[in-house]
């Protein structure tokens, strides 16, 4: 059975695009909002396992197992089932006295027994200890072996990777399969790494402060000295603008004006005042606006890849 997800829009913004998942175990790497939109949409079409599944608090673990087994009509020995949930040593404990991890494992029992061909699980490893995780991995694998279509929704990629490598991420344009091909990374490791560190040295109240280039918002020339602006604060630098430009260029900096070098990663907006006057607005803390020379506009647009 395929799980069909329909597009959900919020104004003109696509929250969840449409997609159809094939049978088998698939992970969806989604934030809480998207997870909830998908869960809501599938409410009537498939079995949902939410993170807040409840249990009768005054029954013991064993009684809970017996109750759900009798309701589901499965013919499985009780002890075997309790063992597969890793709860054999707490079977006489009441549900309300269980540890959180045990209780979360136990709350998977109704889902394990009642789910049909299609199943959505929200945050399968939410609030579980290591032992609980192992139990959960085994249980999800057991369900997957029964030819069900299972969708795991979560925002912890590592946890999803415990059970499947078939993971999709969502953005406006659609579901994208994530590539976990580790070979290129392995090849890179074999090469002798060249350590090259470029720090920008600044002086502030007699102290020497080193900045990583990506931290810098922009560099400004004030009375002939270069001032490095980081998080809304200016630090004096002994280098000239020209030297700085040369050093910073590989990090995506650009000399946008005679007395300004800007970190292009931080440019939010190109403001056009008149035909010949432009400014750049940054997405730093202060939303600084810095001037842009008319002559540099064409080159800058090319660098940014905008028209």
């Amino acid at each position, binding site marked *: 059975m395929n799980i069909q997800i329909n597009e959900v829009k919020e104004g003109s913004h696509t929250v969840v695009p449409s997609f159809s998942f094939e049978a088998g175990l698939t992970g969806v790497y989604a934030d809480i909002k998207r997870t909830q939109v998908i869960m809501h949409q599938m409410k009537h079409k498939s*079995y949902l396992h939410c993170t*807040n*599944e*409840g*249990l*009768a*608090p*005054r*029954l013991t673990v064993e*009684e809970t197992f*017996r*109750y*759900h087994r*009798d*309701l*589901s*009509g499965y013919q499985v020995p009780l002890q075997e089932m309790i063992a597969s949930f890793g709860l054999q040593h707490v079977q006489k404990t009441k549900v309300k006295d269980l540890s959180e991890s045990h209780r979360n494992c136990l709350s998977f029992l*109704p*889902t394990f*027994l*009642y789910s049909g061909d299609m199943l959505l699980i929200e945050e399968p490893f939410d609030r579980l200890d290591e032992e609980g995780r192992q139990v959960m991995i085994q249980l999800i694998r057991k369900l997957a072996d029964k030819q069900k279509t299972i969708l795991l929704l979560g925002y912890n990629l590592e946890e999803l990777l415990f059970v499947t490598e078939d993971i999709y991420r969502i953005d406006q344009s659609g579901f994208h399969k994530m590539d976990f091909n580790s070979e290129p990374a392995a090849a890179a490791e074999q090469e002798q790494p060249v350590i090259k560190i470029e720090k920008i040295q600044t002086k502030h109240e007699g102290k020497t402060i080193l900045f990583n280039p990506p931290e810098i918002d922009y560099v400004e020339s004030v009375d002939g000295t270069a001032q490095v602006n980081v998080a809304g604060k200016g630090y004096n630098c002994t280098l000239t603008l020209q030297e700085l430009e040369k050093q910073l260029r590989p990090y995506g900096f650009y000399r946008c004006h005679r007395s300004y070098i800007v970190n292009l990663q931080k440019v939010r907006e190109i403001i056009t005042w008149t035909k010949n006057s432009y400014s750049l607005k940054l997405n730093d803390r202060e939303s600084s606006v810095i001037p842009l020379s008319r002559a540099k506009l064409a080159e800058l647009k090319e660098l940014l890849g905008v028209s």
Partner: protein
Amino acid sequence: MNVSVKRMRAIFIKDYKEFSRNYAVSTMVLMPLILAFFYQNAGASTLDMYFLPINMTFAVVTTFIQACLIAEEKESNTLRSLMMSPASMADILIGKSTLVFSITLVIIALTITILGFTPANLLILTVGLMISAVFYIGLGIICGLFTKTVMEASVAVLPVIGVFSIGALALGLAETYPVLEVLKWLPSVQLILLEGYSEAGYTSDIVIALSVITAWTVAVLVVAGVLFKKRMKDE
């Protein structure tokens, strides 16, 4: 609609355990017994007096426990998985109602014994009590569906006590306020009349009283069924 005895039994056992371990709910069964004891000591002798603790039992035991059993499923967030389970609506409702029905019969029997009340015709009274028990179970289901917690359920039974248990007393004021004659058609009042008729041996009146109670019961069960089905669809 498929009905399975095994599933109903599972629900019955689970609810019995939950009920007996939840003292906030289970100690409620002592209330009518204590009331019966007081009435017996105070020298109750008229039918109205005998039937007040009995009608009270229906409201505070039958309706209250039934409402609690359903509200509790919501409170502990298990109603959704119960409705997604293979158990049908009939399984769930019959499983829960059987428990409440048995408790009701035991408590009523004890109440009557404590009161020292000897019915004129045990068979007719038993039939009347059993149909009434089903009626109050239906009311309990409706109360349970409109409440989310046990605490809310205990408030929701107040109107039931007010209308059906106390309503029988208010009939005494009918001489002053003729409007209150309507109360005669309440199932709780009809139960008292039923016992009166069977003492006097009016067969046709007995049939009328029983059919009035049955009509109430059927109406309540239909409403409860519709509401429950609607709730099941929402889940």
